[in-house]
């Protein structure tokens, strides 16, 4: 296998250093305690430091003898649309109700594919909304109102 400088290695290592470091800083704010009675901060501090060290090792290795991983394109449209759809669901399901929230979430999600035609998207969203309502609310008795208070119910 070919070994050379590798962007994915450096990125992954960077993510680990960053998150590990954040946990280390965060855990210093909690009581560390003694070995006999470890406080809430001790264990995250230990693991966070280990992870930051591992991340650093990955970065260094990525700079001199990285793993060649094909990074490939990023489907920005899909990332944006799917995140928006999921956040929308979490944010509105209580107040808008199950049916409208599911419909909008499904419709948004179908747009993640760059090949989808508008008519297909609407058909898929409608079908999924009906299926989800039947499965979760009618079949499994999930206690979410079908139509929420925002719509005057």
């Amino acid at each position, binding site marked *: 296998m070919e070994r050379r400088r590798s962007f994915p290695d450096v990125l992954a290592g960077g993510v680990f250093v960053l998150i590990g470091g954040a946990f280390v800083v965060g855990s210093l704010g*909690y009581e560390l305690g003694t070995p006999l009675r470890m406080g809430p901060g001790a264990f995250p501090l230990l693991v966070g430091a280990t992870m930051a060290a591992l991340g650093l090792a990955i970065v260094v290795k990525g700079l001199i003898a990285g793993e060649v991983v094909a990074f490939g394109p990023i489907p920005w449209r899909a990332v944006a649309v*799917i995140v928006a759809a999921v956040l929308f669901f*979490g944010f509105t399901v209580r107040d808008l109700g199950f049916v409208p929230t599911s419909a909008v979430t499904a419709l948004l999600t179908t747009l993640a594919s760059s090949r989808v035609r508008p008519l297909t998207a609407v058909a898929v969203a409608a079908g999924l909304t009906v299926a989800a309502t039947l499965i979760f609310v009618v079949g499994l008795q999930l206690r979410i109102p079908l139509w929420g208070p925002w719509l005057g119910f």
Partner: protein
Amino acid sequence: MELLDNLALGFSTALLVQNVLYCFVGVLLGTAVGVLPGIGPTATVAMLLPITFSFEPVTALIMLAGIYYGAQYGGSTTAILINLPGESSAAVTALDGHEMARQGRAGAALAAAAVGSFIAGTVATVALAVAAPPLARVALQFGPAEYFSLVLLGLIVSIALARGTALKALAMIALGVLLGTIGQDIYTGTPRFVFDQRELYGGIDFVSVAVGMFGVAEILRNLENEQTRTAVVSKVKNLWPTREDRRRIVGPILRGTGLGAALGVLPGGGHVLASFASYAVEKRISKRRQEFGRGAIEGVAGPESANNAAAQTSFIPLLTLGLPAHPVMALMVGAFIVHGITPGPNVITDEPALFWGLIASMWIGNVLLVLLNLPLIGFWVRMLRIPYQVLFPMIILFAAIGTYSLSFNAYDVYAIAFFGILGYILIKCGCEPAPLLLGFVLGPLLEENLRRALIISRGDASVFLTRPISAVLLALAVAALAVTVLPAIRRRREIVFAEEE
């Protein structure tokens, strides 16, 4: 015979109408997600977990287990027919299985896979029934120090089997453990890393982590290059193998079963390793080595038996030690806990009906799988025509509904988006998501036992080395770590995994 009494109890539980029904639903769903590329058993189990909260515990576990081993089964169907392994362990089946299909012998390949899986499933179920009780008795002697060392060993062995570099897998475990510390501290009740959000006090739900890492991230991967799937499948005929075929598959099935049953116990995806190891063994001892890769039926029967046997025996560490060997098992730990049962050595004595019922249901599930797969093969093939543009919105919507219904907490839903993106970035950088999920589930156990052991030993950290069982487990962990990092063995691993491409 105690074993027979236990199995009788198991079958009387597993044969209750609702249990057979949900076992059927489980293996049906499992086969479906095994057939469909782009959704795996981990994401499916995670999405369906909230639904099972209202079931009886044994019914819930029977269904979830059915999804897991059903998926191993479904994955081989597509591997043989269209050279598209739906599950990673079926990749090796595609080598010879698809070649057989191209020669018009798809029927024989499917039958060899089905018969092999059934025999392996039966043997492994018995192995599970025999091996679990003594192991659970040993585990009952474990104190916190032993448990800490055992969990550490489990985590480290899991990276030996992961793809990608050991460093990244270790870092993923650490990340999982860290994410597991979010929420209230078990000893002092101090909320940790919650940013003053009350919704985070209970910690992040592992369902959100699993759905994000295995569901959303996988969808983003698939949307990178959209292709229309073309499923050109020749008609399947002559399901029954010829006498020559039957003679040739006996050995591979038995060897594959043994190999799989042994390797399945290892943490971190023993079923993938088992199918590769079985293929390598069959190729080495075969008198017609040149046929391998050109449609040797041994290359289908062996690995298929191995991965199915491993799928069954990977329940051994879960049921006896409470240690998950696979991300799906990690989710099952959650299922146990939701129903108020702590997975571990006590399950077998406290909940005998559940324990033996689950084991017996696996055998029933294997019978159902044979009935489902061979006659209905045309149906599964037709399912491949479902366009991805319908499939992925369904996964996202059901994932959002499923995680919301966990505790009607919007943060659980936001977490899917977060872990989807994080998982996507890390997977793109060559990190495997499985160690993270194992770390996330086992992290709290690790911390709890570490702190408890130190309290009992009055702060003396040498307790992990002076207690013999703990010392042996730690020594094994160090050895496993050395093995994964040593260059010579690493190269061999790379060769094994390179064949997967």
